[in-house]
């Protein structure tokens, strides 16, 4: 039995997915980014094998994606996260025409054509870089886990207006508002709102065509989902595998290659530890 792997090396997390020949997910692994992407890739891969009890020899093809895709020493092919997120989103929601992914480095809006091909994509311009980290800044300023931020924001009654688009100033502005006596949830909601608005404008750049699938870890944030739906005026697909979408897409590309008769150069050899 042959298996394929998709490895997604992002700036904050490394994720891995294993698929069998039918394309069913047989293994998953996720770790927080280590200081060295190459070793992070190794670790994820080893966890992936451990989770499935397979040996590296049975992995017939591996596709790497994400910013660290070229650092995956055992990768057979590199595909950008744009294509991979699109592919993953389509697998989860076949009617997807637009994909939104909020990442740590980049936020992307991807337009998908009728044959499932990527026809256009837009990424944040420099001044709105690291939008995803807005939330990180908030969790630091408020000293609370990132997972708690969305739910708390949902409690807002009078959201404040966050005007800065610059991540550098997010933390200051949050502290400033709190100092003025605004409630945490209102400040948080304001911040979610400013992120949602900016992501919406990215989606508009590629043309707002439903269905829209929201991928990436931030899609776990209920406030963000609710706001995006409000701003975009359409419901969003959110998969419970959302943060694995890139890896899944990579895995599916690996499967294509396997089916096209290509096999890993590394296949059969143990991956160095």
């Amino acid at each position, binding site marked *: 039995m042959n298996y394929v792997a998709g490895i997604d090396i992002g700036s904050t997390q490394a994720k891995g997915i294993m698929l069998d020949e039918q394309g069913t997910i047989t293994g998953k692994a996720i770790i927080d980014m280590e200081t060295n992407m190459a070793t992070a890739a190794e670790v994820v891969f080893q966890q992936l094998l451990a989770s499935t009890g397979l040996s590296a020899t049975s992995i017939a093809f591996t596709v790497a994606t994400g910013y660290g895709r070229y*650092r995956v020493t055992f990768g057979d092919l590199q595909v950008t996260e744009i294509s991979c997120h699109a592919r993953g989103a389509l697998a989860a929601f076949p009617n997807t025409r637009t994909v939104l992914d909020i990442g740590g480095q980049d936020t992307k809006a991807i337009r998908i054509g009728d044959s499932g091909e990527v026809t256009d994509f837009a990424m944040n311009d420099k001044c709105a*870089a*690291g939008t995803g980290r807005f939330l990180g800044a908030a969790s630091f300023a408020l000293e609370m886990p990132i997972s708690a931020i969305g739910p708390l924001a949902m409690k807002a009654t009078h959201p404040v207006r966050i005007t800065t688009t610059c991540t*550098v*100033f997010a*933390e*200051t502005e949050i502290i400033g508002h*709190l100092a003025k006596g605004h409630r945490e949830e209102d400040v948080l909601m304001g911040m979610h709102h400013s992120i949602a608005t900016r992501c919406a404008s990215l989606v508009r750049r590629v043309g707002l065509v439903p269905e829209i699938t929201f991928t990436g870890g931030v899609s776990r944030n209920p406030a963000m989902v609710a706001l995006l739906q409000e701003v975009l005026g359409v419901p969003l697909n959110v998969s419970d595998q959302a943060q694995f979408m890139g890896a899944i897409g990579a895995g599916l590309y690996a499967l294509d290659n396997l089916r096209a008769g290509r096999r890993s150069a590394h296949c059969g050899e143990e991956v160095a530890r």
Partner: protein
Amino acid sequence: MIRSAGIDIGSTYTKAVMLDVNRKVIATAIRRSGYKPAVAAAQVFDDLLANAGVSQEQVTYVATTGYGRYMVPFRHAQITELTCHALAISSHFPRVRTILDIGGQDIKAIRIDERGRVRAFRLNDKCAAGTGAFLEKTARYLGLTTADIGPYALRSDKPVEVSSVCAVFAESEVINHLSTGVAPENIIEGAIVALAGRAVQLMKRVGLEAEFALAGGMTHNAAMIDALAKRLGVPLNLPPQGLGQLNGAYGAALLGLRRAERLLADGRAIPAPGSETATPTTLFAPRRWSTYTSIEAALS
């Protein structure tokens, strides 16, 4: 017996210093500002009184500074942190003409005269903001505490180039360096060198007149002090042990002391801190048009 208290309400910490008539430090106090600066200020003032073993009535004059300087109801006067820093540094180092203050959200360069009066000053432009915070972020990213940064960076053998002015881009640079396996100490040192370069550029904007002094949080960071000295070609004066962080409060206390002496010399009584006559009130408050909403606007 004249006693003067200076309270510096900063965005992260609130600090206080009490001086006696001989400009000797009687007591100091520090607390996190949290996001209720007024409360923090009151608590720090109580700490200060306790540490000095005096009662509120025994304090002749209270001067506040820092971004929360207006939030302290029991103050006699408020002065900006720049004016305070300048005076404090100058009182320690009369020959200093250019002061550098690196904070989390901004860098300040101040030119002063022989009497510690501000002659000119410049703050970094918007896109170069958050550079101090960037250093902390990088440390956080590398799993270091702010205190570790200095010693850690000193181990660097060849610092990387961190060229971005913008802290956000700089962060991506750091991530890329990490991904290519560059040693963390070289990255931190690179960030410090870059920050030092930007700081010195700002000092040039105000004339770069020697001698130099460093104020603010970075006074603990040996690597930063090193990098700055390299850039400037001469060492910087550093505030006396422990006073670095308290500089603003110390300057406020000094100014308060001067003011108190002047008032008493003129035979004018100074109301006790906290008494409603103590707090300065602006003479006449013009309407704040920026916050005014007209009926028409409200309706439409």
